[in-house]
């Protein structure tokens, strides 16, 4: 039986992942969270870190197409994964994604701290409903994992509705 090497298993390692279609490489100890890896190693600071225990939803990103909390995933777990962050939404020329435009148009944000999480949750929600026909209940359940302390949610729900309409065209 081989002796288990816990020392080696705690060392930092090189991690490569695809973020917003681009390949990135960085170093991380096993304990580094994906949210911190994105922000501090890859300098992608659009992903916000709020509560850091999975409650607020600010750090929501797409992991292989699925919405997740990046503060509850280790960077080592995202090795070779496809990640989409809020930086991946707008077009190359800087023009806004229909979801971003809808939040802008409908007062879907005030201070903006929770916004990256809401945008990614909305992105995932609309991707899951290819016909883009959502009831208010479905919208509210879809964004229920994200907290906003400013808006009172009315503007956000309206924004999701507008985004769905805009993306249908």
């Amino acid at each position, binding site marked *: *039986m081989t*002796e*288990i090497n*816990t*020392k080696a*298993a*705690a060392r930092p390692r090189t991690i490569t992942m695809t973020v917003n279609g681009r390949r990135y490489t960085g170093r991380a*100890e*096993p*304990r580094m*969270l994906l949210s*911190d890896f994105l922000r501090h190693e890859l300098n992608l600071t659009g992903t916000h870190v709020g509560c*850091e*225990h*999975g409650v607020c*939803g600010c750090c*929501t990103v797409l992991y292989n197409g*699925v*919405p*997740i*909390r990046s*503060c*509850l*995933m*280790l960077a*080592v*777990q995202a090795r070779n994964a496809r990640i989409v962050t809020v930086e991946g939404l707008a077009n190359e020329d800087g023009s806004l994604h229909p979801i971003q435009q809808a939040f802008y148009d409908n007062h879907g944000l005030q201070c903006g701290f929770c916004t990256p999480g809401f945008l990614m*949750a909305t992105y*995932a*929600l609309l991707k899951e409903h290819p016909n883009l026909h959502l009831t208010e209940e479905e919208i*509210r*359940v*879809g964004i*229920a*994992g994200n907290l906003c302390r400013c808006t009172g949610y009315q503007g956000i729900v309206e924004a999701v509705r507008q985004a769905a309409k805009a993306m249908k065209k």
Partner: protein
Amino acid sequence: MKPAAFAYFDPTTADEAVETLGELGDTGKVLAGGQSLVPMMNMRLAKPEALVDINKVKELAYIHEEDNSFVIGALTRQRAVERSRAVKRRSPLLAEAILSVGHLPIRSRGTVGGSLAHADPAAELPAVLLALDGWVEATSKRGTRRVAAADLLLGPLLTSLEPDELLTRACFPLLPAGSGTAFLEMTRRHGDFALVGVAATVTLDAQGICTRASVAILGAGETQVRAPQAEACLVSNRLDDSVIEDAGQAAMAGLDPIGDLHGSQEYRKQVAGALTQRALKIAWQRALPRSER
């Protein structure tokens, strides 16, 4: 709010995971979806010396229907159970309860095995397993054993699994024809931890007599608990509103919840009694033939 350092292992097979856990002795901890363990590590409430990440053990992600049961691999995401048409059709209690587990991004990562092994007293899946008389299977280098739901849950975040054991699958038995089920819980905010919740099942024979009933309550004790006094009110009886009311009262009387900031002991008892009554009423209606509802 950052995890303490740990050694990280990411085996790709269940055998390898069990081997690694065995070598780590009592210093290893299994990481599944991470939706409960990682928050605890972020807050340093948990500081495992070594993590055995089973997310690459794809052989542990499946939903099989066999021997009148759903056998679900430990790594199966809660979201996969939620999306399973077979589960929705054949195990409505599981399908109904899974929707109350966290939010969509949580269920996307959270696993069936993780929820059972974590054993939060307010978690939904242990209550469902308990109500259906299910079991889990645990494997270590010493062998494989089955643990009944009632023997699994020992206390808050405490199970009878040994540190070197890997929970590999869970079995949720199907109920016979003539059964109805319901899952209800009360939360302050959508998707939040439940204050109290109830998983109820009722089985009626052709004459409408109740032959089997189960009530499992979450959030009202050290673990999810069955309410045998309530079940005794129902079995061998023809159900009606007053029998069900008695069962609700009996469930309440048998509980000894812990009061905290979110709800006093008395309040939790009241809610448990009321939810039991409501859940049983729904389960009973669902157990009746369509013509009699």
